[in-house]
């Protein structure tokens, strides 16, 4: 069997795994936003107690290796009588870690807009809510896009760790195929290429969005960092 034929045979399985990888990425990022945004708000606008609580969470989530977290969720929790299906365990682990990183992106973006614009908005008679909605948010979103693109690519790649707890995503599908074909080089390269294409699409999409809503003087001038 030549390489091209091998890839052709493997592709249906790999694409099936890719679909799972995309689902893992989507749900993990969603958890990251849903949990990360309130954390950012708590850090910027919350009182001391709230700030303390989220600081501890953030510290923990950023200090524990994702692999350890996934193993804890999958093998540790059942010992306490809590068994989570592997797909969900993976999403929770990846999502909660991403939330910690995303919260820092949003916090930084909100704070970088600056207190003087908030003051100016209040001086016009805007409520704090209105000022946030009309003045802070439109700028913070633009500032956050490049780092969010970066974080999305990281999450996408880190879903491969879900393989270790048994989620049949892209990498594990590849493993299956290697077990029968014994062609690790070709299959791993194909998997790498698929990850490359996916991250390129994610970054490209957000980059387009960024360019479409570009405003002079906001964000990093001259396009965004193509950090993969």
């Amino acid at each position, binding site marked *: 069997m030549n390489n091209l034929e091998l890839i052709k045979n493997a592709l249906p399985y790999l694409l099936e795994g890719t679909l799972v990888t995309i689902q893992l990425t989507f749900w993990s990022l969603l958890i990251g936003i849903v949990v990360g945004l309130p954390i950012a708000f708590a850090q910027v606008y919350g009182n001391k107690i709230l700030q303390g609580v989220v600081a501890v969470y953030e510290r923990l989530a950023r200090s524990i290796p994702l692999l350890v977290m996934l193993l804890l969720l999958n093998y540790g929790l059942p010992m306490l009588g809590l068994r989570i299906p592997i797909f969900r365990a993976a999403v929770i682990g990846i999502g909660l870690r991403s939330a910690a990183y995303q919260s820092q992106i949003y916090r930084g973006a909100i704070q970088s807009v600056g207190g003087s614009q908030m003051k*100016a908005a209040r001086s016009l008679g*805007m409520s704090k809510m209105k000022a946030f909605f009309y003045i802070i948010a439109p700028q913070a979103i633009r500032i956050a896009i490049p780092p969010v693109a970066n974080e999305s690519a990281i999450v996408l790649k880190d879903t491969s760790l879900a393989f270790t707890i048994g989620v049949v995503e892209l990498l594990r599908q590849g493993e299956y195929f290697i077990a029968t074909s014994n062609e690790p080089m070709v299959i791993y390269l194909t998997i790498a290429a698929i990850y490359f294409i996916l991250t390129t699409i994610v970054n490209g999409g957000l980059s387009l969005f960024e360019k479409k809503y570009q405003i002079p003087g906001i964000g990093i001038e001259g396009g965004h960092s193509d950090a993969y």
Partner: protein
Amino acid sequence: MPTKHLLRIEDLHHSFENEEVLKGISLALDKGETKVIVGPSGTGKSTILNNIIRLVPPTKGKIYLEDTEITSAKNINEIRQQIGFVFQDFGLFNHLTAKGNVMIGLTKVKKMNKKEAEELALFELERVGLENYADSYPSQLSGGQKQRVGIARALAMQPKLILFDEPTSALDPELTGEVLKVMRNLAEEGMTMLVVTHEMGFARSVADELIFMEGGNIVEQGDPEKLFTNPDHKRTKEFLFQLTDLYGEGEN
């Protein structure tokens, strides 16, 4: 108590942490008047302005806008619409054009329709000499132009008075002139203004009354000509003469 003054401040105190920065300030402003507050840095001048619109709520004292006591008023957002504020660091909204900056208070706070708001915004921009920069973003404007947008934004709200918090401190001398010119015109048109500044030339030639502050107190207030030439207090003389020596008597 009813009053004929447009703005009246009575026994205003303010403390940051344990340090009292305002130790009982009283002053009044009539319609059409321009009063200028001068004094060394850290004397509490800007705090007075921030106290008035409660960006920094005062510790003690009463402030009246016409007949309304505004220090404890619940509808602070309505009161803020009636008092313009021009910031030292401009406070422009970076995601909006010059026109957008002037319009947003009209459309989002005053609920004016977009077309009307746009007309008024263009009118106010023309008033500060920026009709050709309506579509420029703040990052594309010079400091002096930014501050003039800031003034247009305050004017568009059609306030009863405008507070200026060191409007030219962040500008180099060349740009200071264009901002002071706009302010001078406003004063002549009868806008009521309370100005904190270090621009002695402006203070001397435009102010109806000059207020010299130091250490959280008003040391002396009155006709600027008198304060500059023959003040009652030694400290006023030292401060004003020292600045006049440094910067000369004229305006930029």
